[in-house]
Structure formats: C-alpha cells, structure tokens
C-alpha cells in the first residue's frame, strides 16, 4: 500500500507549476556562489545578476500567464492552488523584489555592509510570498508565512552596526513571533475541531482549505472554530498592520533600512491582503456573520488611527508607515465589500498596483536623500530639494500625489474603484470614514511636498532654522530610468486605466 500511495502522491506533484519559485531559490544560491568565485572588484555585478534574472523570470511568467493553471487546479496534493489571482500576485511580488534590489544598490552603497546576503534574502522572501499567495493548506500557509517573517527579521536588522536598525529588528521579532503564535494557535483549533469525525463534515484532511470550508458550512456557530477564526484573523491583522495590531509599524519602519521599509510597506502588506482574501472569501465564508463585523470595526479604526497619527510626524519613514496603516484600512474596506461585490477583488489588485508604483517612487527618492544614518530622515532634510534636485523632487511629488489620491494619478483611480465597490456593497458608514481619511491624508502628504518645494519655514516655534545637512547621492542611470518608469506609469494608469484596469477587474 505505501508504495502505491507514494506513487500517487508523486504523480500529483506538478513541479513545472512552481518553476518561478524554484528559479528564485536557485538564483538566491547562485548569488552566494558568485560572491565566492568572483574577484572582489567585480562584486558590483551581483545585484545586476539578481535583477536581470528576476526580470527574465517575470517576463516568462507574464508570457505564460494563462497556461500555468489550464490543467489541474490544485497541485502537490492540495497544498497549492493555481489561480489567476495567484498568478497576478506572483508577478506583483516579482516586480516588488526587482525594485527592492534596485533600491538596495542605492542604499547599501552608503553603508559598510556585506551586500550579497541582502539580495539573497530578498529573493528567498519573494519566493516564499509567491507560494503563500497560492497556498491551499495550512501547513503550506504557515511554513511560507514563517519563511517570509524570519527573512524579514534579518532584513530589518540588516544594518547591524546601527543600534536603531537592531532595535527595530528586535521589536519586529517580538511582535512578529507573537502574531505567528496567535495564528498558529488558531490553526491548531481549526484543525482540531474540523478533524473531529464525530461532527458533520469532519474530515481527515482538515488543514486543507476546501475541506475546512466544508466543515464550517456544516457547523455554523461552532465555538472552538469561531475562536480559531478570530485568532487566525488577529495573526493576519498583525502582518497588514491593522488597528489594534499596528503598534510595531512606526518603530520598525523607521529603524529598518530604506529598501527593507519599502519591501515591508508594499510586498509584505500585499501578501497580508492576499492571505486575508483567501481566508475570508474562500475558507471562512460560512462564518461571515462573525468575520464581517470584526473586519469592519478594524477597518474604520485603522483608517482613523493611521491618518490622525501621521498628521504630527516629522520623520518621513514614520510618516510613510503611519499613512501605510491608513492604506491598509482602505484595502480592508475592499475585502469586506468583496463579500457582496465581486468587483472589489479586482479593485484591491488595482489599488495595490497603484500603491506599488507610488510607494517605490517615493522610497526611491528617500533612498537618495537619506544620509549615512538611515533612520534619521526628517522632513527638514527635504528643504529646497526642488532647486537642487529637480528630478527627484518631481518624482516625489508624483509619488506622494498618487498616494494621496489626487485625481489624474493612479492612486485616485485605485481609491475610486474601492469606494465604488464599497458603495455598491452598501457600506455607507465605512465609506464616510474613508472619505474623511482621504481628506486628512492630503494635509500631511502636501506638507511633505511643501517641504521639498519651498524653503524650510519653521512653524512659529521661533527657534533658528536647523541647517539641514543633506548628502544627496547622484542618481545612477538605470535607477533614473526605473524612477521615470514608476512616475510615468503612475500618471498613465490614472489617465488611462483602460487595458490594465479591465484586465485586473475581469478576474
């Protein structure tokens, strides 16, 4: 019997389906080998290799977008589930990773740090996030999530000479491990109740999402299952930084190296929402009477907290972290709306894409403006940026405008789509809070733009203006190209969401 069972299991393994992840893992190893065999003078080639290979993987993934999941839906005995959403997220994470590597070339040059491990970890984390977005089984889910999280512990504390980076790493470690434990306990409870064959729908494979959903449908209102669901949602809420699990965000975002902050802000948040969508829309659907109120309260509180706390910030990394909390709130409205309005899922993907373009434009500028102390990036450092570095200032203005949701830019279309979906789903109170939040956010985003375009004017404090010591790195050629691409696509996607928008919304 065991031999046949193993053969059956092996026949279900579609290794071709996870080629991109395998390629990323191999590339990560290749980078370490390259460091050993290349002479020291040529180590600059390593990030180039990382970026080029990722571009190749991304292009081939895009070309094979629909072929990957034409045959079987679930592979590896139900561990992974291939879908159009999963394909989109894979591409999304790859693009994130490419930009993080680009930012890494700018930021790491200012520190005396080993370089190669950074790219290695970024690739491994990206592969794990790609698997996470397609997981269909709690074991796969947990292992992929932990690979991402443990990788991020290292990346956040990567500048190990800087006490601030280490402190951020420790805080992220404690908070991340706490949330993982909550999540794990939730998984265990769900596994336990759903595996009880005495209950209707109890299954021997109760960690599989489809089986679990079958159990939840058969047993509405089971107490242990409800506790499990709440714990799992709490764990996920930690990852996306929703109130009341947002306390780690400002400190960690400030202390982490700028490229890592960008990675956390965009890719990690997108992974959190991918997971949240899988769980709420596919697995926990029978328990929506429990899930929707919890999410609604969190979404409202998240938007208000993020925007109000960002108002008084002067450190730009904390500011972008806190404003990121409010973006998570808008996205959560989309998740709630997705219960009644299928359009909302596409709206979330569009919003995340716009957020990616705008965020990386802003982080790209931040990486250039930052001095050697990476945690110390104040609004004052941006004084007169427009005169000295008009190119960076223009990119910054477009990025921040898109984040704020100014009409012709992509961020506006993203917010509009989410709000339309929420309106169709009838979430009027949340919609009101969200619109209020957007109005508040314009104030602090414009404060930043103002700091960049006008001489620093201190608010009535009467102290002498601090001499902002800005050591602006010159913008290298291909980073310049990348920043232009980000800004232009932010504008184009706002004016003409057409093909991309339809394609995303069609899913």
């Amino acid at each position, binding site marked *: 019997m065991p031999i046949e069972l193993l053969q059956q299991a092996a026949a279900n393994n579609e290794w071709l389906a996870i080629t991109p992840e395998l390629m990323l893992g191999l590339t990560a190893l290749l980078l370490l080998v390259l460091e050993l065999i290349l002479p020291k003078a040529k180590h600059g080639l390593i990030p180039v290799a990382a970026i080029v290979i990722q571009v190749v993987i991304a292009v081939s993934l895009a070309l094979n977008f629909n072929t990957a999941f034409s045959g079987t839906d679930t592979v590896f005995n139900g561990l992974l589930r291939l879908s159009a959403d999963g394909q989109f997220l894979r591409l999304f994470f790859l693009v994130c990773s490419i930009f993080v590597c680009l930012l890494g070339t700018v930021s790491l040059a200012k520190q005396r740090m080993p370089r190669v491990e950074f790219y290695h970890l970024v690739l491994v984390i990206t592969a794990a996030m790609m698997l996470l977005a397609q997981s269909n089984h709690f074991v796969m889910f947990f*292992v992929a999530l932990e690979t991402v999280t443990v990788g991020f512990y290292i990346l956040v504390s990567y500048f190990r000479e800087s*006490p601030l980076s280490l*402190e951020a790493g420790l805080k992220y*470690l404690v908070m991340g491990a706490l949330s993982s434990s909550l999540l794990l306990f939730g998984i265990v*409870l769900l*596994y336990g109740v759903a595996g009880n064959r005495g209950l209707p729908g109890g299954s021997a494979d109760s960690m599989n999402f489809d089986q679990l959903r079958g159990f939840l449908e058969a047993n509405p209102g089971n107490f242990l299952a409800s506790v499990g669901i709440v714990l799992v949602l709490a764990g996920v809420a930690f990852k996306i930084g929703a109130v009341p699990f947002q306390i780690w965000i400002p400190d960690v975002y*400030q202390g982490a190296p700028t490229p890592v902050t960008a990675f956390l802000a965009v890719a990690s948040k997108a992974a959190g929402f991918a997971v949240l969508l899988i769980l709420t829309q596919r697995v926990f659907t029978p328990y929506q009477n429990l899930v929707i109120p919890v999410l609604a309260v969190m979404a409202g509180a998240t938007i208000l907290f993020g925007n109000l706390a960002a108002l008084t910030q002067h450190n730009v990394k904390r500011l972008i972290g806190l404003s990121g909390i409010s973006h998570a709130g808008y996205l959560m409205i989309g998740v709630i709306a997705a219960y009644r309005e299928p359009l909302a899922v596409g709206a979330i993907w569009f919003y995340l894409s716009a957020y990616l373009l705008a965020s990386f434009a802003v982080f790209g500028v931040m990486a250039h403006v930052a001095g050697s102390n990476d945690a110390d990036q104040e609004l004052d450092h941006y004084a007169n940026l427009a005169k000295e570095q008009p190119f960076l200032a223009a990119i910054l203005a477009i990025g921040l405008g898109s984040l704020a949701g100014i009409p012709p830019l992509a961020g506006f279309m993203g917010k509009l789509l989410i709000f339309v979906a929420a309106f169709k789903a009838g979430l009027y109170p949340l919609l009101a809070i969200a619109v209020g939040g957007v109005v508040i956010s314009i104030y602090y985003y414009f404060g930043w733009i103002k700091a960049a375009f006008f001489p620093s004017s201190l608010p009535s404090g009467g102290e002498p203006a601090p001499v902002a010591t800005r050591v602006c790195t010159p913008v290298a050629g291909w980073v310049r190209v990348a920043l232009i691409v980000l800004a232009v696509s932010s504008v184009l996607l706002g004016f003409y969401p057409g093909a991309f928008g339809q394609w995303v919304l069609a899913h």
Partner: protein
Amino acid sequence: MNAGLNEYLVLSGLLFALGFFGVLLRKNTLVIFMCLELMLVASTLALVAFSRFNGTLDGDVFVFFILTVAAAEVAVGLAIIVALFRRRQTIQVEELNALKN
C-alpha cells in the same frame, strides 16, 4: 486516571495564556523570548492531542514543521539580541526606546 482531550486543551490554553501575558508584561528580552517559545510549545501540545484523539497524522507532521520554524526563529532572534547587547549594553525593554519621535 486517563486524561481526555479537554484536559489537554485546557493545559495548552493555560500555557498559551501564560506565554502571551509573559510577552506583554515581562521586561527582560530573553524572558520575553522564552515566553514566545512557550506559546509555540502550547500550540504543539494542542496539536498532538488533537492528532491523537482525531486519529489523523497531519497534526504530528505539522509539529515537525513548527519545531523547525521555531529553531530558525530562535537562531535569528538570539543573534539580534546579542548584536543589540554589544551596541547598547542592555536588553531591558524599557531602555530600548531610541526609536521615538
């Protein structure tokens, strides 16, 4: 006396709560770290108990994954704590507050 599923669950729930409040209330980073591990172990206990009483092996297999993940977490975590102690000469939570506005 035979322990049933409920006894195991209560015990693991208690251990989990102990770890959780330990993380929130203790001041020494190393103790916090031990509390985090306690939470993982509590989950593991519940997992094994469920696995035994449901008659499926999935839970037992999952335990191996959890142990591996926990080991990786400890390796990274202790490295961070040691590096931080070298810089700051302290691992008390209330003194690690450089990241403030």
